[in-house]
């Protein structure tokens, strides 16, 4: 009886050992893709151990592809053209148009590097870098928008164009077990290469906005990467309409600071929508820009002024005010930044008023 029991135990142990050996062997061979080469835009080579996502592989080699979801396939930003990269996964399809699928576009976070690959990315992404920055100041612009000034430490300077954005790395804290990235437009003048400013509006439960509003301290060091984006002022010389709301102020402010500094003479009107006086900010700065740039007008509007606001300016939604005041827009161009709802409403309005769609540029928070 005892002999039979010991034999059974011995057999079970032997089976376990064999299975463990097989798993270890598989892990070391089947999952071992060796060193793989990723050729970028035909001339740059990245060599890395295979088996990780293309997004992580490129990031570790100093090539930053925009991604707002930490590589979970839920933001759709990390598009790259993969030559011979295979069919997209089901997780990628909601983000890709038919033409993109046909053209070999994939989400870098969903492509596992299992062998040599060739990819195409916009050239400007090759100049994106990671920066260690120190929080120089945090100021309240409104009850729910903070201006954060970040001094660049390493590298010590960034070259960017007004309208571009960076990704802010939130370290692990009580709302996230791992670092996450969120995109914010730069609000400062590009001439100031040693520091950047961001305007961050609090979103209840938002991982990044909660960190910035409740935890971030002056003197703290964090990481950002950038600059990204092609939301930039054209050089057509056309009259310009800017429209923004809330923290959509950021890229427009950067553009205006640059226009004022360089003595730009383009006619420009800036329609800024807020709910009440407490949601309106940077009025002094806008008035200073009006003085420095006589061809510029700042036109703030309040959708629901409070009793004590003593407001004599425009009232109504920003779309109402643009509708009333913008006149003939058919020869102008427009730059919009704000919530998707505001952008969609403004695009419709401007098209209705005769502005060609290809002259409406926007940075949607979506």
């Amino acid at each position, binding site marked *: 009886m005892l002999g039979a029991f010991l034999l059974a135990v011995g057999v079970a142990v032997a089976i376990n050992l064999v299975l463990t050996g097989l798993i270890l062997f598989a892990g070391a061979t089947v999952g071992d893709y060796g060193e793989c080469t990723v050729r970028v835009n035909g001339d740059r080579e990245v060599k890395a151990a295979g088996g990780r996502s293309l997004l992580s592989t490129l990031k570790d080699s100093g090539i930053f592809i925009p991604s707002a979801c930490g590589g979970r396939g839920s933001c759709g930003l990390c598009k790259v053209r993969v030559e011979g990269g295979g069919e997209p996964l089901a997780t990628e399809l909601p983000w890709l148009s038919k033409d993109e699928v046909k053209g070999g576009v994939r989400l870098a976070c969903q492509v596992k590097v299992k062998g040599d690959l060739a990819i195409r990315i916009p050239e400007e992404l090759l100049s994106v870098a990671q920066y260690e920055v120190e929080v120089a100041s945090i100021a309240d612009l409104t009850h729910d928008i903070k201006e954060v000034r970040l001094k660049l430490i390493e590298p010590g300077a960034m070259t960017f164009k007004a309208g571009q954005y960076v990704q802010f790395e939130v370290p692990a804290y009580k709302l996230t077990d791992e670092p996450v990235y969120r995109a914010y437009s730069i609000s400062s003048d590009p001439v100031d290469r040693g520091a950047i400013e961001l305007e961050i509006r609090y979103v209840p439960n938002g991982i990044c906005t909660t960190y910035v509003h409740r935890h971030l301290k002056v003197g703290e060091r964090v990481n950002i990467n950038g600059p990204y984006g092609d939301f930039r002022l054209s050089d057509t010389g056309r009259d310009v309409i800017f429209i923004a709301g809330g923290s959509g102020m950021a890229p427009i402010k950067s553009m205006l600071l640059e226009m004022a500094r360089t003595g730009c003479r383009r006619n420009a009107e800036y329609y800024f929508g807020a709910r009440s006086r407490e949601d309106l900010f940077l009025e002094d700065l806008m008035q200073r820009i009006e003085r420095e740039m006589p061809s510029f007008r700042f036109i703030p509007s309040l959708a629901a002024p409070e009793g004590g606001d003593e407001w004599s300016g425009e009232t109504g939604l920003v779309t109402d005010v643009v509708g009333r005041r913008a006149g003939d827009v058919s020869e102008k161009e427009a730059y919009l930044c704000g919530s*998707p709802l505001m952008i969609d409403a403004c695009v419709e309005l401007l098209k209705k008023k005769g502005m060609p769609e290809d002259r409406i540029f926007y940075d949607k928070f979506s």
Partner: protein
Amino acid sequence: MKQTPEMDSVQAEMAPGRISAAGFLGADQRRLADILSDDDAAVRRLGLTHQGIADRMRELREAGKSGLGEEVDVPPDHVVRIAGVRGKIPCPFHDGVFEKVNTIVRNVKSGREIVFTDLSVHMIEAHGFYEGRGSPFRNDPAVLAEVLGVRPAGP
């Protein structure tokens, strides 16, 4: 309610770092079947239905759209703001992908404020799932009912 193998798979998807950084379960150690069952019982005790709660959430979300991203009064008791963020998020039950849109609702009478997402509305409506305890976007059925002013359907 029995925890099926499908529920095991969905519950695994709800862990932090899978679909979202924070996940959908918070510190809740219960099985998904128990979370669903307990919240279903809570909704019944309130005399409500998941559909009725979801309908009210959607009604306020639609009313908030007129603010174009800023706060808007929704008489008689609410102020609503719609805040879109970059990206989309799939449902952990594998039945849809949703824009990352937050609806922030403040009840001016009580001063209480809650936030829900388009995905929250879908998960309540289609699955009776309000997220686990301690999850950043969990809204307890009783809190939803109170803050949003959800009333039992008439006879």
